[in-house]
């Protein structure tokens, strides 16, 4: 997708090391407003570490260190900052606010001892300076936005009372609660049942239409890529081996590695009987 | 018949030699091992090397170590040699703890294995029984038993054995619950092994590593327990032990610190050696948990 606007997020020559191991090696890509970019590769290819680096979460909770490159982010006021150079307190203001993230394991990604409403409202209170009651109202709004049935009642429930798909909806609601400009989804459907996967992917696409957030989706599944992505970055062994629009990648994969990834897609579901990517019908859109 | 299941078993038990090598690389664990052998050596060869009867009055009472005419660790309230006491006081403690440990392992492993293997009603009944023993305050129960029956080494060993097994039973049960549905156990069932054989020859060897660690720690607990009883004067009145030495000098320790410090140090080092060995074994069997 050719885009003449300056990118919203521009990752340039990003390098991340874990002790002696280089997990991300000079990775570069751009993300534009309203775009959905898929970063694909096998586990261990460095795609998740790339995502955590954008959030600057590699240094928190893992042994990773960002050792090179820049991550340029355009703020809503137009100023461009390098996330790598920002202090932890600036990053805290960004996380969950300008850039938010959802994770692979909805079962374990929510704190078991607090209600889901609380966990969503917490981010709203932090970033938007609302009081508790207002934040709970906002939580209800985003619960309804992500089509959680009986949303008001769900607010007071604990994660273990919800199904996996419902928990992932809560995670998405939490991520969208402060109207981020960039949403990073790290394997958002991998841990879910196939039918739930389709629902969540459909929901994400609908939400993107409604909110106009740019999305980075991290996945190993070319089927998911076909369904949601505009552009694709293929990673293998810590490096970007190929990038381009989703049609180019599916029609004319240049790299043998990309061809291998494509060949491993089960020709089922929405891809059954087709070789090209096609978007499936949106859930609830008649 | 056994041969069929051997490969699976081997995969689950951490290779003994690797664990041993890990253990020897752990400085704290090796220090524990050295301490333990030091205590054993002192207890069983010490009396030959330091030929002094701990019950003999060798000098004036309350001679501080380092003063003229005092033995290396001074003398107690009767003028007995404290060093001789420390050297001779270990055998009762170690023997009682060893007998108690055998009992603890026998009761704990049997009950835990049956509960974990059979589950259902057997499990419920056995775990209620275990809970009952966990509710009994161990030292008090042992005190009552020793008071009502004669305070001999045998009674004391039995009393300690009776109260310290529940934690081992719980651990064994948890291990058996974990292992009983694994493939190699199913394989053993499929070829028609008896329950007894599955419990003792198939599951038990795989549950061994945590049980060994736990048994080591239980030895330490049994020693502390024996020392506590002896300190209260509930030990075997006819034999000297470290705990008894501290108990006997209880009224005088403010003027004679050495009479209680050295026997206590002996107990401490013995228990510490078991703790260090247990910790080292834990790390060796399960390197992932290192340093926790």
């Amino acid at each position: 997708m050719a885009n003449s606007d300056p990118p919203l997020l521009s990752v340039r020559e990003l390098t991340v090391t874990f002790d002696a191991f280089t997990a991300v090696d000079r990775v570069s890509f751009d993300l534009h407003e309203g775009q959905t970019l898929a970063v694909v590769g096998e586990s261990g290819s460095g795609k998740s570490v790339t995502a955590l680096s954008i959030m600057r979460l590699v240094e928190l909770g893992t042994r990773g260190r960002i050792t090179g490159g820049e991550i340029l982010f355009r703020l809503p006021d137009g100023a461009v900052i390098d996330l790598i150079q920002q202090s932890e307190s600036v990053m805290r203001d960004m996380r969950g606010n300008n850039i938010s993230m959802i994770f692979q394991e909805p079962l374990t990604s929510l704190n078991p001892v607090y209600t889901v409403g609380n966990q969503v409202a917490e981010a709203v209170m932090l970033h938007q300076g609302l009081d508790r009651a207002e934040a709970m109202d906002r939580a209800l709004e985003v619960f309804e936005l992500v089509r959680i049935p009986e949303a008001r009642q769900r607010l007071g429930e604990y994660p273990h009372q919800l199904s996996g798909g419902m928990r992932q909806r809560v995670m998405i609601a939490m991520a969208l609660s402060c109207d981020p400009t960039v949403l990073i989804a790290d394997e958002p459907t991998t841990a879910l049942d196939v039918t739930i996967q389709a629902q969540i992917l459909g929901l994400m696409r609908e939400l993107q239409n409604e909110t106009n957030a740019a999305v980075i989706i991290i996945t190993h599944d070319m089927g998911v890529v076909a369904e949601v992505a505009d552009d694709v970055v293929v990673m293998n062994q810590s490096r970007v081996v190929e990038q381009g629009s989703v049609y180019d990648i599916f029609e004319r994969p240049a790299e043998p590695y990309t061809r291998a990834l494509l060949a491993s897609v089960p020709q089922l579901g929405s891809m059954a009987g087709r070789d090209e990517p096609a978007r499936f019908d949106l859930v609830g859109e008649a | 018949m056994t041969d069929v299941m051997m490969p699976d078993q081997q995969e689950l038990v951490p290779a003994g030699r690797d664990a041993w090598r890990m253990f020897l690389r752990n400085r704290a664990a090796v220090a524990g091992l050295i301490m333990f052998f030091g205590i054993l050596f002192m207890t069983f060869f010490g009396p030959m090397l330091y030929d002094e009867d701990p019950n003999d009055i060798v000098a004036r009472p309350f001679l501080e170590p380092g003063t003229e005419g005092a033995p290396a660790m001074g003398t107690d309230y009767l003028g007995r040699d404290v060093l001789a006491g420390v050297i001779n006081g270990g055998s009762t403690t170690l023997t009682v703890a060893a007998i108690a440990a055998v009992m603890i392992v026998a009761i704990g492993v049997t009950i835990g294995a049956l509960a974990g293997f059979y589950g259902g009603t057997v499990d419920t009944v056995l775990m209620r029984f275990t809970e009952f023993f966990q509710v009994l305050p161990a030292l008090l129960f042992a005190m009552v038993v020793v008071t009502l029956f004669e305070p001999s080494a045998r009674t004391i060993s039995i009393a300690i054995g009776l109260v310290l097994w529940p934690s081992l039973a719980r651990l064994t049960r948890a291990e058996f619950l974990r292992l009983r549905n694994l493939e190699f156990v199913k394989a053993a069932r499929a070829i028609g092994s008896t329950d007894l054989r599955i419990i003792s020859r198939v599951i038990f060897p795989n549950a061994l590593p945590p049980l060994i660690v736990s048994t080591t720690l239980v030895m330490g607990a049994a020693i502390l327990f024996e020392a506590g009883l002896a300190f209260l004067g509930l030990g075997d009145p006819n034999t000297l032990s470290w705990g008894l030495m501290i108990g006997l000098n209880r009224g005088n320790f403010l003027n004679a610190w050495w009479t209680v410090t050295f026997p206590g140090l002996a107990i401490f080092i013995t228990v510490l050696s078991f703790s260090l060995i247990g910790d080292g074994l834990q790390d060796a069997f399960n390197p992932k948990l290192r340093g926790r």
Partner: protein
Amino acid sequence: MRTAAAKIAQSLGLILAVIVLNFSLIHLAPGDPAVVIAGESGAASPETLAQVRADYGLDKPFVTQLGIYVGQVARGDLGESFFFGRSVTSLIADRLWPTVLLVGTALIFAIVLGVMAGTFTARRPESPASHAVTVLALIGYSMPVFWTGILLVILFASVLKILPISGMHDVEFDGGLLASWLDVARHLVLPALTLGVIYLAQYSRLSRASMLEVLQSDYIRTARAKGLAEKVVVYKHALRNAVIPVVTIAGLQFGALLSGALLVETVFNWPGLGRLAFDSILRRDTPVLLGVLLMAAVMVVVANLLTDLLYRVIDPRIRVGARRTRTKVST
């Protein structure tokens, strides 16, 4: 999950079992059960023994005797201490409070400080403080509690003469209520420290391990991705999850804690149940000894119930039952 009612019924069952155990011990002990019940090491007068035989129905069939014994205990009658000439129940009631005070203080001290130390060191796993926790835990576990107490007494009697080393009140004490509390508090410091320090060592190590594990979990990453400050991440999101295993172990160890209190009371002349039990052994005052055993078992049972309650407060997975069939309880 078991309901509260079932839990209480089970607790009562355990206490009944301890009563039956006491009864069995009286009959298993060598010699005449009447002598055992009377205590005094066989020095009781024939009239006393006859009285005991009549009270406990010792000429009746075994099952009837058990029934009489259980009935008496259930009514709060634990027999008579011939040494004190008082009912065992009133003796125990007098000594209960000091033991509860000692054990409670030691436990709170150990848990609060232990969790704080564990949390602090878990955030800096390679720091000297972190290694110190491991070492101190090993040392604390390996020291005989009565020996630790004696060493503290020696230290505070000869070098640091700032705290009382024996008893619960000053002999010549005279003052108001507040001053009297302060006096008790001063006497409490050393015994509670002695008892608490063992568990402090263990709990700091345990909460360090638990905190290390929790800090690696996915929901902590989520909390950080929300933009929460590290303090909020650790103290709001991690801590509550990390204390769950500490509460479990503290509940399981309560019996051991009581055993330790018994030794500590002996060292510091603390007028609690342990001291009473120890003196009763010297006096062959069996009814008191058996009464203390029962009381201690009741304390453990109550402690377990409180642990269960605390669990429900901390962990909603136990408090709030699964409502829908598709719900899966994560571990």
